[in-house]
């Protein structure tokens, strides 16, 4: 579903992403860990077609993003760190609008079902988004992904700033989507959540994918140790 092939991005002399090769299959949740500036968000922006790669390629559902970014949009949904929706519209109206952009004309019952599936309480459906917490907005984001039957979900620090309960709830929703066959790539700092939800985990540093392993092959403690070890400056490590 998601493939990057030697994907590289340079900003002038700075190498933001260095020959990234990764693959996220149908139903997999791939968590990209790394410090700020490691290249996680650049990877997601390249997959979204917001940035053009300096070299290499990215594919969403076998469509080359650089060559046909517009065509890839119908397969993917994106939830950024702070999902911003129209504050004067209700959750139902926002979902209706964004589904409309994706070419889906949904009835009120369908819209309500998707919001329910995303874990939103029914009493909140008709409230304006301006009254929503971040966690509730993320749920609307999930509802948008559900409504468009996205095959690929790209998430950039989606649990950042969420309380543990909301974060746990979000993880549950991701697994639900995974069971539906959605391939998810999530950039995060949250090792605990990554270990909890991921099928595969990758650790990035200085634009390179340093380590990659299946989540069930490693304990949280080992993950933390590996991560911290990779993050140590070389001189200090010596």
């Amino acid at each position, binding site marked *: 579903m998601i493939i990057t092939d030697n994907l590289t991005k340079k900003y002038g002399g700075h190498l933001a992403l260095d020959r990234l090769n990764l693959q996220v299959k149908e139903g997999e949740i791939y968590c990209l860990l790394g410090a700020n500036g490691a290249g996680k968000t650049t990877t997601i922006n390249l997959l*979204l077609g*917001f940035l053009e790669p300096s070299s290499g390629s990215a594919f969403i559902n076998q469509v080359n993003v650089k060559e046909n*970014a*517009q065509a890839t*949009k*119908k397969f*993917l*949904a*994106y939830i*950024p760190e*702070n*999902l*911003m*929706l*129209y*504050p*004067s*519209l209700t959750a139902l*109206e926002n979902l*209706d*609008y*964004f589904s*409309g*952009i*994706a070419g889906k004309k949904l009835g009120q019952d369908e819209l309500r079902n998707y919001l329910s599936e995303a874990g939103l309480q029914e009493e909140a459906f008709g409230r*304006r988004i301006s009254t929503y917490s971040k966690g509730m907005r993320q749920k609307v*984001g999930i509802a*948008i992904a559900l409504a*468009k039957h996205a095959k690929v979900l*790209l998430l950039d620090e989606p649990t950042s700033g969420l309380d543990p309960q909301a974060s746990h709830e979000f993880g549950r929703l991701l697994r639900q989507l995974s069971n539906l066959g959605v391939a998810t790539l999530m950039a995060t700092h949250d090792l605990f959540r990554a270990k909890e939800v991921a099928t595969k985990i990758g650790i990035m540093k200085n634009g390179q994918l340093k380590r990659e392993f299946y989540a069930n092959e490693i304990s949280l403690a080992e993950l933390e140790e590996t991560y911290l070890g990779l993050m140590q400056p070389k001189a200090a490590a010596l």
Partner: protein
Amino acid sequence: MILSTFKKENQGFMRSGRIRIALLTVLLLIAVAFWISSKHYEATNRMYDSAKTSERANWDGQGEKNPHSAAHYGTYAFKPKYPLSLIDQGVDKYVGSSIFLEAHARHEAQFSEAADQTGLARFGNLSPDFILLFIMPLLIILLGYNSFTKEHEMGTITLLRSEGASFYKLALGKWLSLFFPILVITSLLFLGAGLVLSQLPDYGVFQWSALGDLYGVYLVYYIIFTNLVLFISAKSKRSGVSLVLSLSLWILSCLALPKAASNVAGHLHPYPTRQEFAAEVLKDKENGLDGHNPWNKKAQTLQAEVLAEYGVDSLHQLPFNFDAYRMQKSEEHEAEIYYKHYDKLKEQYRKQAEVYDGLAMVSPYLATRFLSMSLAHTDYATHWGFADAAEQYRVATQAFLNGNFAENSKYGEWGYRADADFWKELPPFEYDPPELSTIVSQNQRKLWVMALWCIGSFALLLFTTKKL
């Protein structure tokens, strides 16, 4: 997506207190302006009717009188307020509504409304054309300045981009939602005006087609503003910048350029001062035939020619009153002088109008303003037409009076009096403003300019931005 965006934007408009207040304020202003204008229209035309009837009664009731005394007693040509002046008052307020018609002299229109008002008149009136030309573009700016910038500021642009939203569809949806309230308000105003005008006494010819054309001109004006405001919003990074740029466009287009155009046109093609104009006319008159002075050189020549033509030695032997004949010839000669000098003024007006047409390429306000006034019959061209018709009527009246005097008396018989019923034989003054087809053909250049602005601004909005 176009209709979804249209629906979403309108939901946003209706839920924004700022926009609800703006829309209600404009509707209230329109209602007040319209009420004031319709009362003014009715009152002015009642005065017009009353003055016309009373002046005609004065003329008809002169009793037995020498026709040349009646010629100096004079009469008035009154200009009615035409139906569409209810919407655009144009220059009517400043150009006078009646012209005194008497022997030997062509007078300017007088009794302008502005002359009857205090210096406060400089602030202008709350009229429908003020709302249509100045306030509605401001409303477009208020509703649309942040159409695109708010997507950046709220962060929704990211989701739109990730969902693959097309700029063209988003822009068209936003365009429709911005234009929709403007269309509703404008339609209500014009429909209201049409219904009121079709109920009022018919002081002029009211045509729904002319009202429809005026409506069309204003809609094109708003389309241009909608395109430009959305273009600025699409190209701006922040709402504040977009607002400042849009307001600057409004100030330049609606306030600064029209005033500059007036200065430029006046500078390039100045009118003579009233004194210079009068002096030029007087100079020509002095070199011509003086109807009241038999010893005038031209009068002597005319006398000799007439005596020779009739083969008589004395003016007393002529079968008509030579005094009246000479006065008529003098009127005809003076009328030519006036035509010549007024034609020069009209030529200056035409050249000034060309300057305005040229500057309309920079400001759509100018083309709209002049088209609106033309369609409402409140422009200078209509006023010139009225003044020319009044002058033709004056010349015809003098011929009518001098003819009676010449045919019914002998040379030197200044005591002659026409019958008391004679005055009623003079046909009343009538003036029909230009037909719609004439107005359209006279304003083709302005119509082209509007069309160019419309197409150009659409192209600017839709083809200069490809990506969100």
